[in-house]
């Protein structure tokens, strides 16, 4: 059984770059869509709010797998152009998680106390400066922990791309499975678990760093410290 270990490892490792690529692309698109759609949900204009609301509800309310099939199989038939599997995957991951991210952005912006808006008004700051210089910097601190969760979910969702033949971790594993015995299958799935776990730990550590920095910028102990791990920042 261990004879095949090098093959299993090298084969699954080759799936890591596409997985990482899909995750990074998906995260980038998620950030952009979350910001745009999240702020649109708070717009003064009803039509803008409505468009964003439809986007959020549609992508939260429909299956990611079905969306993936649409973009990969149906859309090309309609427009006569086959989209690269990895690109299709990134688009679906981004659209989906952007819908959740929009709600995170909206909630975080709304959590900034009314008193901060009052202070901006008293200083005659324009609504644009108020958003850019006061509200968003504080809202970002609030939204980061939720985005950490969202990005980890996105990372795990990259496994869906195996369905549209992206050679990521899971598909590499599936290609090996038919020729191997039970023990080796077990090894494959174990390695897959560990690979995702490792990547998730990377995402979490990166985000923790950001969370800590952002919290320091508003003079607050980071989330972890608030729940008990003291850092000695006086409130």
């Amino acid at each position, binding site marked *: 059984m261990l004879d095949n270990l090098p093959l299993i490892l090298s084969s699954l490792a080759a799936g890591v770059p596409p997985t990482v690529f899909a995750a990074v692309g998906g995260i980038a698109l998620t950030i952009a869509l979350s910001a745009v759609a999240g702020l649109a949900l708070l717009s003064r204009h009803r039509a803008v709010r409505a468009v964003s609301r439809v986007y959020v509800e549609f992508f939260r309310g429909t299956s990611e797998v079905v969306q993936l099939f649409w973009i990969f199989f149906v859309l090309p038939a309609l427009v006569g152009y086959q989209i690269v599997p990895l690109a299709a995957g990134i688009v679906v991951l981004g659209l989906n998680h952007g819908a959740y991210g929009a709600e995170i952005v909206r909630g975080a912006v709304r959590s900034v106390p009314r008193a901060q808006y*009052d202070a901006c*008004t*008293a*200083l*005659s*700051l324009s609504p644009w400066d108020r958003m850019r210089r006061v509200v968003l910097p504080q809202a970002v601190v609030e939204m980061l922990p939720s985005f950490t969760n969202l990005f980890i979910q996105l990372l795990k969702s990259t496994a869906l791309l195996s369905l549209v033949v992206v050679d990521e971790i899971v598909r590499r594993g599936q290609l090996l499975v038919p020729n191997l015995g039970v023990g080796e299958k077990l090894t494959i799935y174990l390695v897959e678990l560990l690979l995702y776990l490792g990547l998730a730990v990377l995402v979490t550590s990166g985000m923790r760093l950001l969370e800590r920095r952002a919290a320091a910028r508003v*003079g607050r102990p980071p989330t972890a410290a608030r729940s008990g791990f003291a850092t000695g920042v006086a409130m």
Partner: protein
Amino acid sequence: MPVEPMVVLDGVHKRYGDTAVLSGLDLRVERGEHVTLIGPSGSGKTTILRLLMGLEAVDAGTIHVGGRCLTHMRRRGAVVPADEKHARAVRRTIGMVFQQFNLFPNMTVLGNLIEAPVRVLGMSEAEATRRAAELLELVGLTDKTHERPTRLSGGQQQRVAIARALAMRPEVLLLDEVTSALDPELVAGVLRLLRLIGESSDITILCVTHEIGFARDFADRVLMFDGGSIVEDGPPERLLVEPRVPRTKEFLAAVLEGR
């Protein structure tokens, strides 16, 4: 020579839902005058300051500040409620300090002080920084220039908030119970600063406070509020010492007893 009052409220009505807070309030404050508003909680003192600051809109009546109408504007000959832009232009001459300081936690003390002068008044960053340094010296916090507001004591935060309001060179300054959220030992420092500002500038000041001793030597005039109306209006040395209205007497007795 008659000089136009700095602040004029004419028949101002304000209600929140079913609660009528102000029903036809009239008030004038002269240029450079220091007016202290006293009265029980819920009598509408904060509401008046918030209306003046443009944080709330009047339901009826008008407010003029420095001769300009805050609540209404002319559009094609007709008088219509002020839009955001008009209100912002008039508000520029008014500053406010809040009970809870409301500093921007995402900026340093210096950042708090230069933000509006740079963005709103179009001051250069160098000039705004120079002015901020003067103000921090005035409020005695030069050594905190690069600190985060959350690392300061309440008294220090409130002094920064006062400096931040002054950085906009307001003609009218609104102070809403600026010492009420402070620990007792920090109150005196803030009051001393306000006295200093009152003596060394010609800013018109409306100040809500429960510090009767402070009101006595700071104010030119004291207004006693109850249920949204001014029940007594007079110089502090008279009103605070020999109130004529029973309601004022009761209120002063209650405040003095509570100390």
